[in-house]
């Protein structure tokens, strides 16, 4: 026997035709497959909820589809209700349009500064700070709009009502800003360097290059960012519910009270409307309208974003549709260019430089003008970014000043009494913690399983492409729609009632797409060579994933999961229908009713007594601290794993 003793191994005897993959592996793979397919169920649930609810709504005698679509009055209550969607729609458009009118230019300018002018040190600080704006729960924005921006607005415009569209728009501008900034920034960054150099080398100033070359080249990405911002603004619930009022307008006046679609849906949840009436079921019809709107906006934007990610920002090839149109229009009109002998002879004619078009005497003044324009432009971009910073700092300081006073040990831990002074967030705090843990339990296995299936096991078939599409669409569904789904499916259909279980499942539905995306990113960061190496020594697909991919992706997956949980804990709209505002004790079981921090904040903010507003601030402070801790943990894990990473 030689040094390499190959005589007596078991492996050698195994016939090549024998399948290595055992039954257990097949079970695992099919489990993963099922996990990924759950998203289809979720989508089906959403459609079922909305359609079923709408059918119920349209079956009421007082309601007709015609009136719903084309009626111009929305009076859901009273003896003679009228359900014309127009006022809700126009209010939604007013809010979303107003928001994007502000957030678009500010966001694009800030992105321009970040990508073109900011030194890398500034950029490294500024971008996370802007993204911090996205991490603040919408309920906090709503509170800020009502109690801080509101008085300012009323001071400037004395005719403004207590609830008005403008204050919501102002706050939502900064909510939407991170979306616009980060996607615009990505697409500006994706503009190839040589394009900028071409412009600079011709004697364009940096500003001219930015405006005339870089922005047009990134136009598709920028418009996608704006569209995504619009989708976000359309779907936003809490800010408008808190700050914009509850009277549907259709008057296009931002200084008056309005009620967009989301706000109406939220209103049906807050108990002012008796269930079983057309007024309550109208929420589903409004919900489906909202769903369709956001679906299309997201869809268009998503396609553009996908194209940017693939790196083809400058389209060279016209699309099939464009080709078809061109073939049938322009090309028919225009004669094909005949190639003449003259065209083939490319020999340059004598270059005569005595012909001059440029008047050199005027160039100096012209240059000074252009430079001033440039300085002015760059200052605007800086100002946009500064504005975002100021807003963030103002918000945090306000919350802290208002809230710090109400925080005490009793406020955090004692059981709330009935008097104002006995307010406590104990039930909400424990409710939120339980909610979070349960959500984690439901969402993480589903999300990670789906991600593993997509990234490691699935082949590129029509079904996986379909699943991907479904998940991408789920990520864009407004949170209030999930609230409706939770209500219809978990509370009513599954008969869980307004329980912790129903609430956490609803939240799990909402954050699952986020966990999928972040987990996939973590999996993708594991080098392909690891997989090849494992497969090369004969590991099966699942063995490879289990032993080599997952262990290396775990920090990333944990980070992503924590971040999406922090999103869930701050959400109000999905559990608006399920949470019990008046719960005085911590939930004792999964079927118990519960209240969560954002719900408490919402409830207190709408309370007539001013003291409760202080308590709301305190609760916000606690919520923000919790979010901060969660984010810090996530960042710490990411940092540590990146430091330890050896590849």
């Amino acid at each position, binding site marked *: 026997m030689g040094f390499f003793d190959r005589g007596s191994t078991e492996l050698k005897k195994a016939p090549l035709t024998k399948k290595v993959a055992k039954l257990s592996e097949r079970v695992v793979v099919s489990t993963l497959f099922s996990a990924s397919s759950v998203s289809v169920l979720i989508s089906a649930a959403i459609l079922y909820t909305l359609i079923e609810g709408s059918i119920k709504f349209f079956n009421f005698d007082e309601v007709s589809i015609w009136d719903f679509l084309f009626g111009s009055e929305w009076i859901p209550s009273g003896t003679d209700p009228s359900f014309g969607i127009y006022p809700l729609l126009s209010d939604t458009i007013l809010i979303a349009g107003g928001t994007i009118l502000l957030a678009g230019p500010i966001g694009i300018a800030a992105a321009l500064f970040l990508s073109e002018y900011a*030194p*890398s040190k500034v950029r490294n600080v500024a971008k996370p700070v802007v993204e911090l704006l996205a991490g603040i729960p919408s309920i906090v924005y709503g509170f800020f709009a009502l109690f801080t921006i509101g008085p300012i607005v009323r001071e400037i415009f004395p005719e403004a009502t207590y609830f008005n569209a403008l204050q919501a728009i102002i706050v939502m501008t900064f909510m939407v800003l991170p979306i616009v900034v980060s996607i615009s920034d990505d697409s500006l960054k994706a503009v*190839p360097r*040589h*394009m*900028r*150099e*071409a*412009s*600079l*080398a*011709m*004697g*364009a*100033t940096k500003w*001219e290059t930015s405006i*005339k*070359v870089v922005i*047009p*080249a990134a136009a598709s990405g920028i418009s996608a960012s704006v569209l995504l911002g619009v989708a976000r603004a359309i779907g936003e619930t809490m800010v408008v519910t808190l700050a914009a009022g509850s009277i549907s307008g259709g008057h296009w006046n931002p200084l008056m009270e309005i009620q967009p679609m989301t706000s109406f849906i939220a209103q049906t949840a807050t108990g002012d409307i008796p269930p079983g009436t057309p007024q309550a079921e109208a929420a589903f019809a409004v919900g489906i309208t909202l769903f369709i709107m956001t679906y299309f906006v997201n869809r268009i934007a998503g396609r553009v974003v996908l194209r940017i990610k693939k790196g083809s920002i*400058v*389209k*060279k090839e016209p699309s099939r549709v464009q080709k078809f149109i061109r073939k049938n229009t322009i090309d028919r009109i225009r004669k094909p*260019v005949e190639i*003449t002998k*003259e*065209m083939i*002879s*490319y*020999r*340059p*004619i*004598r*270059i005569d*430089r005595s*012909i*001059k*078009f*440029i008047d050199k005497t*005027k*160039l100096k003044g*012209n*240059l000074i003008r*252009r*430079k001033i324009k440039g300085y002015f432009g760059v200052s605007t971009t800086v100002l946009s970014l500064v504005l975002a910073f100021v807003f963030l700092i103002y918000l945090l300081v306000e919350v802290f000043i208002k809230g710090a006073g109400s925080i005490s040990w009793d406020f955090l831990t004692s059981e709330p009494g009935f008097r104002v002074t006995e307010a406590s967030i104990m039930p909400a705090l424990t409710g939120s913690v339980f909610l979070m843990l349960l959500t984690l339990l439901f969402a993480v296995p589903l999300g990670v399983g789906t991600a593993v299936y997509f990234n490691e096991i699935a082949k590129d078939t029509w079904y996986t492409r379909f699943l991907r599409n479904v998940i991408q669409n789920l990520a864009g569904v407004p949170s209030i729609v999930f609230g409706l789904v939770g209500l219809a499916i978990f509370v009513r259909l599954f008969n869980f009632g307004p329980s912790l279980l129903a609430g956490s499942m609803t939240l799990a539905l909402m954050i699952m797409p986020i966990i999928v995306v972040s987990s996939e990113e973590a999996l993708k960061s594991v080098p392909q060579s690891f997989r090849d190496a494992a497969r090369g020594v004969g590991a099966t697909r699942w063995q490879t994933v289990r032993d080599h991919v997952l262990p290396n992706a775990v920090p990333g997956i944990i980070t992503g999961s924590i971040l999406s949980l922090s999103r869930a804990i701050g959400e109000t709209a999905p559990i608006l229908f399920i949470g019990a505002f008046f719960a005085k004790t911590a939930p004792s079981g999964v079927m118990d009713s519960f209240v969560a921090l954002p719900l408490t904040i919402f409830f207190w903010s709408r309370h007539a007594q001013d003291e409760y507003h202080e308590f709301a601030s305190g609760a916000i402070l606690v919520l923000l601290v919790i979010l901060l801790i969660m984010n810090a943990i996530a960042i710490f894990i990411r940092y540590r794993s990146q430091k330890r990473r050896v590849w």
Partner: protein
Amino acid sequence: MVFGFLSSGNNKKGKERKKLHDSSGNNGKRSSNDIILKDINIFYSGKQAIKDVDMTIPEKKVTAFIGPSGCGKSTLLRNINRMNDEIVGCTYDGEILWQGTDILEKKVDPVALRRRIGMVFQKPNPFPKTIFDNIAYGPKLLGIRNKKKLKEIVEKSLRDAALWNEVKDRLNDSAMGLSGGQQQRLCIARALAVEPDVILMDEPCSALDPIATAKIEDLINELKKEYTVVIVTHNMQQASRISDFTGFMYLGELIEFGKTRQIFENPKEDLTERYITGRFG
């Protein structure tokens, strides 16, 4: 090329002989339009990329920089119109004298400078606009708004770049639809539109096929009658075909600079000879 050189060597024996032994440089004559580089040092975030380069780029001639990749020839070229200002962490010292000014001085505005010293890049980089707008971009920046005048500029620039006949019927089509060679000539036309005096070319043919390359080379040959052309190329044959003067650079240093024929026929430095005969490293 080699044959051409041989026969010409035979025909005008006496004349050529004298010329060959002339010292390098612009036949001794100095013009203020020459670009005189003095002690140029360029650093990328502290690392020296160009070391003590001294040379005179003569007016209305084609000057080529050759050398292995990473030797700093593009870096040096980009300093002539201060494109290096746009790169974070790039610093330089020394002087570049042109028309009586040191163009590296802080008070010289790179924006104004770049109109006078245009540049063409390695990859054809038209803007994603129409052919017309690509050319008119520069003049518009300079404040020309008159449609008729713009049209004239576009036509003249395209004619000068030998592209007019090929594109005159589709000026309003996207420039992205042109072939690589046409795109590069469009970029040259675009550079010509702002009436520069010097044209820098950074490997303008490296992304093109031989036919397109030949067209660009013809164009360069024509351009040098009116413009000073500085070209970076990694194609030695190209340098020998089109340039009047050649500088060989290695590891950031200008090893040898002289008339192209001298560099390729009888290089003074062993390093140059080893490089051009492919016996490097």
